[in-house]
């Protein structure tokens, strides 16, 4: 997934402004926050497997879509590094949601994914910070 996203990232077409990129990364941060809450339910054995599986599938699809959208766009040179970081974050998110989808009732996986989601959110917030100059 990550490789595909990075590959797509090299074949850019179109424009990606700082604002658009920022909105995209903010939505990745929101997805990671939601993923963290869902994974927390799995880790605490406080959820239902079907709920986790369907939510993970839906949100993972959104992360993949965001990865493709960001990778397809051609960034202006000053945000190229942030765009690449965003594509990577989106790919990682999609992978984590895929993990939740595969193991919706496994508490150990839930705990790991919860931690990873937290880290991915921090990365996304850091990119937002670089793009806006404000704390996310």
């Amino acid at each position, binding site marked *: 997934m990550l490789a595909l996203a990075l590959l797509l990232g090299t074949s850019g077409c179109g424009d990606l402004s700082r604002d658009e990129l920022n909105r995209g990364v903010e939505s990745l941060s929101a997805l990671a926050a939601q993923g963290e809450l869902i994974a927390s339910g799995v880790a605490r054995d*406080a*959820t239902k497997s079907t709920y986790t599986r369907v939510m993970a599938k839906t949100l993972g699809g959104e992360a993949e879509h965001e990865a493709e959208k960001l990778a397809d766009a051609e960034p202006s040179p000053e945000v190229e590094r942030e765009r690449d970081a965003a594509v990577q974050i989106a790919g990682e998110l999609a992978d984590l949601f895929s993990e939740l989808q595969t193991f919706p009732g496994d508490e150990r996986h839930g705990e790991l994914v919860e931690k990873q989601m937290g880290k991915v959110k921090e990365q996304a917030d850091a990119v937002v910070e670089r793009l806006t100059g404000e704390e996310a």
Partner: protein
Amino acid sequence: MKSVLKIALGIIAALGGFLDIGDIVFTTQAGALYRYDLLWAVVLGVVGIAIYAEMCGRVAAVTGRPVFDVIRMRMGFGLGLVALVASTFVNVLTVAAELGGLAIVLQLLFDAEYSLFVVLATVGLVIVVALLPFGGIERVFGYCGLLMLVFIATAIHQGPDWGEVAHGFVPSLSDSKLYLYFVVGVFAAALMPYEVHFYSSGAVEEGWDESNLRENRLNAIVGYALGGILACSLIVVSGFLFHPVGVDPTDLGTAALPAQGAFGETGLLLALGGILFCVGGAAIDSSFAASYNLAQFLGWEWGRYRGPKKAPRFTVSWLVFLALAVMIALSGINPVEITEYSVVLAVVALPLTYFPILMIAGDRSFMREHANGMVSTTLGWLYFAVIVVLALAAIPLLLMTNGGGG
């Protein structure tokens, strides 16, 4: 004693049936984006629907005329037709959104194809309507919709800063277009006209007369006020859990997460069950409202009590509207997006149906001693002004914010 019990049960059913997918989507998103700041917009909407429903119920009880009968009489065929087309369009969109919402919840509970659940949910609703009497439908969905009380329990369990929550009830405006869009959305979601049209038609079907005016007032004021508390609890739980971490609840299933956070799997199941019955009840109400409006406007025989043989065109139109809604729900458009459009367009169409009711409710030649008094007249016109302003602002805000996407 028996009548008090009947009224109390009616209010409980109204409470359980107050929320629909529009309320759930807009309040959850409003809480995530603006924490408790938009609680006042719920109150504004709830007072609005109480005023509108009370007038419609009173007109129905005193004159025996439901909403679209009054609209045709007051506005004539041409303008009335505009109101009918606009309302029908919004109603069909609403039914589609509710069916889509039902399918999403069933998917979250049983994990199968969305499209399969859209079809199954529709067939299920048709069977329920065919088998249960009107009161039975109201009670099943109204009482089971009380599962939504889990959101009030969640709010209490979360223990937010209640001072901050209270501050959210103080109206505040902002120059942010997105904020204004959510003011319109939260208000409009609380004041969906199909609920009132269904209520008024139900009053005529049940043969209300002047002896039901007290029941009407209590239903409208107490029932909707209690329902408003549920809507407020959705904002509070979302504001508490989602706002600090930046969750953007664009999926219906996300609305159940706060209950899971507070009460684990039990909380999640109660929340999903509550959403299921609220949305299911709303699908029935909104689809019937579409057929009621059409039949009343065209002077057809209408009514759930009359049955398909005595009111064939009414029954066929109900099935046609349901079929159209199924097609929209299966089109691949996210039900949350359909919801946003149906709610915003509903407020655009609202002045066309609110105005004739306001006029008739204040007309002593029709309503005699039951015409609007000074308080009702003042509130009625005040709300008409609010509705017109929001109706004019709704479409530009929808476009400028890209449907709330910012």
